[in-house]
């Protein structure tokens, strides 16, 4: 498969903050890729570098086989940036048809509006749109040029549930025309439901890379909990299958990739008071991947190690993401 974009050991620093640390990432042409991470993970920085809005301090970023600026100038890219309000004193139609006119092979402006679901707002002044409508106008501006690569930075942030659903339909319709899409989000649900592949970003590096299924498997889909009854948590992290430990009140909650083995080990140790085994939600899984607080540091390392076996990249010696993607896809 040809590649639309590639990050090679990319580092980016803002003063004391290391926003990206040796990021390796390939985006295959035609795929829909979700960049998943919580606030400050480095999603917007990754996108800014991909679009040539900023330059990496280390490593290199390639877009359609060249420097990002060249691909942008050639009209192969459209983007909806995270921040941005519609400018005043112009209508929706004027803005969309203007942006379209700067591209070599644009969509007809009406089609861009229809795709974004704001066909009836063509004559409305852009600064008189509601938050959700403005968001969809920004989507229309991103697709107006008919770009091969569509980049969306947290595109559903201001939308309610219904509008979100409509938005993702629009996105998939655009992707369905054979285009490549990269979007960022901090909801695993959204990533899982709308992307072919998910790259989990945390503290400026990838901590997992694969399909939604593979990631869920890798992070441990089961929670095993029991009452500590004042007992210590010592040694619990070392039990078979345990990826992470959290203490909620007086209960120890273990995230396990192999709940049978974990339960047997707990039983052997006599730790079965109030024992429960429940499936973890997607959000729980995501939090495990990116947890830093309390048991955090350990949980994160554990989760990455787990992810390494199933779906993707761990810390330290990072395997080729494209390769791990294929592993995960099998």
């Amino acid at each position, binding site marked *: 498969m040809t590649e639309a974009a590639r990050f090679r050991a990319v580092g980016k620093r803002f003063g004391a903050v290391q926003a990206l640390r040796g990021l390796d990432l390939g985006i295959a042409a035609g795929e829909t890729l979700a960049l998943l991470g919580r606030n400050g993970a480095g999603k917007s920085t990754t996108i800014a570098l991909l*679009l040539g*809005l900023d330059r990496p301090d280390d490593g290199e970023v390639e877009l359609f086989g060249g420097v990002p600026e060249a691909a*942008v*100038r*050639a*009209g192969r*890219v*459209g*983007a909806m*940036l995270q*921040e*941005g*309000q*519609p*400018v*005043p*004193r*112009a209508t929706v139609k*004027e*803005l969309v048809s*203007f*942006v379209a*006119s*700067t*591209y*070599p092979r644009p969509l007809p402006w009406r089609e861009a509006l229809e795709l974004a679901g704001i066909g009836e707002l063509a004559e409305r002044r852009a600064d008189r749109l509601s938050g959700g409508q403005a968001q969809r106008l*920004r989507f229309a*501006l991103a697709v107006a*040029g008919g770009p091969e690569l569509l*980049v969306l930075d947290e595109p559903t942030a201001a939308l309610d549930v219904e509008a979100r659903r409509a938005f993702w339909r629009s996105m998939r319709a655009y992707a369905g025309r054979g285009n490549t899409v990269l979007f960022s989000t901090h909801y695993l649900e959204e990533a899982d439901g709308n992307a072919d592949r998910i790259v989990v970003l945390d503290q400026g590096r990838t901590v997992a890379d694969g399909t939604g299924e593979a990631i869920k498997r890798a992070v441990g889909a089961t929670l095993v909990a029991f009452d500590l009854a004042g007992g210590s948590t010592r040694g619990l992290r070392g039990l078979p299958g345990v990826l992470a430990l959290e203490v909620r009140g007086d209960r120890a909650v273990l995230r396990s990739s192999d709940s049978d083995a974990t339960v047997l080990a707990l039983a052997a140790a006599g730790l079965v008071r109030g024992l429960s085994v429940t499936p973890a939600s997607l959000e729980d899984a995501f939090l495990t991947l990116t947890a830093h607080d309390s048991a955090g540091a350990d949980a994160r390392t554990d989760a990455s190690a787990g992810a390494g076996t199933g779906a993707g990249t761990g810390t330290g010696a990072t395997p080729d993401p494209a390769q791990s993607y294929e592993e995960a896809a099998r």
Partner: protein
Amino acid sequence: MMLAYVRLEIRRTLRDTGFVIVGIATPLLMYVLFTNIGASDSAKDSMDYARYSMIGMAAYGALGAALAVGPGVAEDKARGWLRQLRVTPLSPFQVVVGRALTAGVTVLPAIVSVFAAGALVNGVRLAAWQWAAAAGLMWLGTVPFTLLGLGNGYGFSAQTTGVVSMASMMGLSVIGGLWFPVDAFPHWLASISRWTPTARFGDLGWSVLAHHGPGAGTLSVLALWLVLFAGYAVFSYRRSARTV
């Protein structure tokens, strides 16, 4: 594609009530009022003033229109529109040139409307070449101010730019003698006035009224300001390129 940008920006500018007030209505109104109220000693004096002030107020309006590019750019910057433009095939350089060309069009209503009021309301009579030369020279003379506006817009936040533009417009207009003739100034102020870009900008028109056209002094002072403001615009633009 840059033309499409210029077209969009001209529309947006002309829909801006603030722009229409500052860049067209105010100079026109001030011209008509200043030249028609207050007793004048003689018909000749009042005709002199109608001619002088026609240039002064056209210059004042054109100055306001040119500087208005600043708050416009600053607002687009604040709203992330300049950044959005950076992910289209339009280059940032084309955007800044497009803005300058836009100002080249939006300064015209001030000049044309005040001239029209001069001819139609105050009965100013000039030879055809004088109308054309005065308008043409003043149109070209707005370039330094457009650059000053761009420098402000790229350099400051939206709010600061508004204040800076307003202050530079008022200050430069008054000291440059666009509102009241420099003859009325105290000596020290008059000698400062000669070095302002606005006094020389006005002189582009006044010198045509005096049948000779701008002299070397006016042209070189304007050239100096042109270079200065161009440097300022380039500096602000470069600096903002890192953050936009």
